[in-house]
């Protein structure tokens, strides 16, 4: 096994010892890491627990799982945002929003030092404002509505993942329990009526309207009385209303709305107020009153398919890995698997004691979230996290958590295969955030064409030599465990090359070595998976020379943060005539960025990672 230590943080090293000790055979080594953030019901506290996926039936795994604890202002509702790099803790009753770096954000561009499966970390900046409530994470933006503030705050997800909390205010005409969400080039906001209300009574909500970022209307109000519970799937946003479910989608000339009215055959007097959106097929799962679910299809008839639950719903979730499935926990303590295509319950199992839905909505009751092949459930009265197999609905393990574990969010490996395609065409797709960190299943790896690397590329080594990259070493030293000089020295070895430019067109790679072009034609020669000391992995995509100059290397091996077809935005290249020996090369990794990028852009790009 290839062990690569340089640049790994102290945390990564600890994890390699404890959590990934079984990585002796990387053919069978599906390293998977899920990190559960749990909020206590009573105490202002978030506990973070690492789950390990023991997926080869190992016996008696003892739990020396890593845990961390963070203080907050009050009770939290947790959201994994910015591709799982950050967890937001919204504290509606205490007017605060804390953010945590999940620690699994790492951008594993190559086989070198940016490996940091780090501790989760509180971001020092805390947002405060009157009753923050709904949080929307879509299109690279994180938007928090302040229900008593009359505004929302918009954060950039990418900046947030670097700990930068820089909210932009989006004003609303009246404070209300609503949400704001980006859709195409517009901002959709719920709109409240101006009817006066007594005391703490909730402000009536009229519907949804498009605005520009400063809060000026950009379209007419789409009526959706008492609008609540927004979700995205495919090209659509959907929200529940008294009349039905309102859908909105970006159109060439703004936003196109459609009200899907509740059909007559649904039980009367109920509505949809909470929706979940599938990431794989364009479909929503919503509640319909307390004892029903509806599968909502924004395009095809029937728009609603009803699933009756045997008891009232406590919580529900969709399975990103098996997109036809959802899971719902009912108050009798039974977990049900729901097939969204058949619109029926396909399996049920008792997983906890009963938790009656009588009483306040915010009484301590279990919450569920997906973690790959498992469902993680908080069990507040038992003081436990229960890890339940999604396939069998059998309990796999329990983890004790002090206090009353309540709301939760899970980040980490999930097995979602949705890379570089789908509804989010804004900017380049980073694909699955877990792949970024080098945590993925073998089944997610796919052959890649040379065209992923097509283009005109420049070495960054000259920028290291002339000092342009110095801010990058400062930045790394501030964040990491080494000094500026140590980082510079490491990258001096890493980046060193006399091939200052590479062009790739079709199967032709031209290396410009000290100004002289050397050409070769290359054919795909498979990929190799390397496992690093931290337990995460990288994939080398290898091409071998079919013809060309004698001086052109027999093999080139690309490493970037992708594991399946997607255009590279930069890469590390290894070349030589011995395929196997190249795989052992871990200190020199010449690195190339598009020739069109200026030095400043490259510095920015590096600082951003």
């Amino acid at each position, binding site marked *: 096994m290839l062990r690569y230590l340089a640049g790994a943080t102290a945390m990564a090293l600890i994890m390699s010892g404890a959590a990934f000790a079984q990585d002796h055979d990387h053919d069978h080594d599906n390293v998977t890491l899920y990190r559960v953030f749990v909020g206590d019901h009573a105490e202002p506290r978030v506990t973070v627990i690492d789950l390990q996926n023991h997926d080869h039936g190992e016996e008696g795994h003892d739990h020396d799982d890593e845990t961390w604890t963070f203080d907050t202002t009050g009770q939290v509702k947790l959201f994994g945002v910015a591709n799982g790099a950050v967890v937001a803790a919204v504290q509606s009753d205490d007017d605060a929003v804390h953010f945590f770096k999940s620690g699994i954000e790492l951008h594993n561009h190559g086989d070198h030092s940016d490996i940091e499966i780090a501790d989760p970390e509180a971001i020092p900046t805390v947002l405060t404002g009157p009753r923050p409530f709904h949080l929307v994470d879509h299109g690279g933006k994180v938007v928090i509505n302040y229900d008593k503030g009359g505004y929302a705050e918009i954060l950039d997800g990418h900046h947030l993942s670097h700990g930068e909390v820089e909210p932009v205010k989006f004003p609303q005409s009246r404070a209300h329990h609503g949400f704001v969400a980006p859709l195409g080039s517009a901002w959709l906001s719920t709109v409240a009526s101006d009817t006066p209300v007594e005391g703490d009574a909730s402000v009536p909500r009229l519907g949804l309207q498009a605005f520009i970022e400063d809060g000026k209307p950009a379209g007419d109000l789409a009526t959706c009385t008492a609008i609540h519970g927004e979700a995205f799937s495919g090209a659509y946003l959907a929200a529940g209303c008294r009349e039905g479910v309102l859908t909105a989608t970006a159109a060439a000339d703004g936003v196109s709305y459609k009200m899907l009215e509740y059909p007559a055959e649904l039980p009367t007097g109920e509505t949809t107020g909470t929706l979940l959106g599938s990431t794989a097929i364009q479909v929503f799962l919503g509640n319909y009153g307390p004892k029903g679910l509806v599968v909502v*299809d924004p395009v095809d008839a029937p728009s609603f398919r009803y699933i009756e639950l045997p008891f009232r719903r406590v919580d529900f979730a969709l399975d990103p890995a098996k*997109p036809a499935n959802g899971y719902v926990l009912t108050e009798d303590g039974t977990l049900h698997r729901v097939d969204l295509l058949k619109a029926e319950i396909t399996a049920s199992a008792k997983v906890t004691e009963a938790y009656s839905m009588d009483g306040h909505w915010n009484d301590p009751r279990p919450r569920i979230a997906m973690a790959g092949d498992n469902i993680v459930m908080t069990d507040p009265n038992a003081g436990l996290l229960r890890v339940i197999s999604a396939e069998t609905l059998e309990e796999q393990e329990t983890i004790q958590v002090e206090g009353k574990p309540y709301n939760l969010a899970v980040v980490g490996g999930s097995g979602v295969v949705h890379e570089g395609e789908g509804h989010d065409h804004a900017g380049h797709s980073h694909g699955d955030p877990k792949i970024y960190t080098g945590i993925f299943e073998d089944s997610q790896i796919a052959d890649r064409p040379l065209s992923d690397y097509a283009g005109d590329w420049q070495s960054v080594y000259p920028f290291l030599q002339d000092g342009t990259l110095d801010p990058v070493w400062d930045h790394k030293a501030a964040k990491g465990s080494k000094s500026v000089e140590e980082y510079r020295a490491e990258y001096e070895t890493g980046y060193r090359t006399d091939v200052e430019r590479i062009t790739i067109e079709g199967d032709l790679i031209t290396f410009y070595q000290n100004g002289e072009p050397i050409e070769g034609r290359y054919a795909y020669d498979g990929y190799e998976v390397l496992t690093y000391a931290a337990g995460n992995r990288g994939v080398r995509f290898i091409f071998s020379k079919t013809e060309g100059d004698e001086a052109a290397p027999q093999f080139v091996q690309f490493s970037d943060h992708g594991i399946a077809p997607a255009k590279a935005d930069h890469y590390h290249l290894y070349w030589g005539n011995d395929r196997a020996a190249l795989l052992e090369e871990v200190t020199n990794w010449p690195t190339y960025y598009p020739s069109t990028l200026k030095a400043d852009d490259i510095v920015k790009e590096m600082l951003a990672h």
Partner: protein
Amino acid sequence: MTRWLIHTVACIVITFGAGAAQAENLNVVASFSIIGDFATEVGGDRINLKVLVGPDSDSHVYEPRPADAMALMRANVVLTNGLEFEGFMDRLIAASGTEATVATLTDGMDTMEEPGGGHYHYVNGEAIFHAGAHDPHAWQSVANAKVYVANIADVFCDADAEGCQTYRANAERYTAKLDALDAAIRADVAALPNDRRTVVVAHNAFRYFEQAYGIHFLSPQGVSTESEAAAADVAGLIRQIRDTGAGAIFAENISDTRLLERIAAESGLRLAGTLYSDALSAPGGPAPTYLAMMRHNAGAITASLSSH
């Protein structure tokens, strides 16, 4: 390929096991309208066909629906183009859990590489890069259409041995029509003056047509980001239009015309009509079948280049 064969065997077993099931039609899902038309020609009334991405729709930005997953679940055979044309297909297959034979119809075809590692689509005025090592628009040459048809006949024969003779006969009859179409397009192009061979399109979907018939297509290329789509590139294209003496600009049924109107205004060329690239037209339109589509495209192009 091995995987599909295994599935095929499973299908046959199921079919025989069901006994009377052979009286039932083959359930076929085609990923988009052009493949759907080929399937209709080969399958005739022995198949029930569901087309996922319908007329005038762009497969690249398609969002699969629950009904699609359900159709896949029921399907015996799923026909796809491959070459990364249908980006939604893998997750749809995963969602449906289908056990149908999934056939990639461009398998074994002599495909062209994408020079820049992909091509651009223009949706709601934005450029969207469609990455892929090979140009997926193989149906734009009639010679390739014959390969699609032969592949479909093979897949149908594997799935429904009893109908095989019918499928082969249908394919043969249709292939004769394709041969006639191919000859007609060549004759039309040959009649053009030698210096009138270049037109402009928004989306570079006609490289197989270009290779087969010698009409040169210009399109905006090499755009690095959506937002920059791009002043710079349009300028380069305008220069190319002047240098090559391009004769006309064509809109496309799957794209909006905003970008083309800009190119037309800046180059002084006129918008000479609509070409059908990645989808057929609706039944009442000028290109409801593959034969009609190719006749329409070739006719529009040659008319625009001969009239001047």
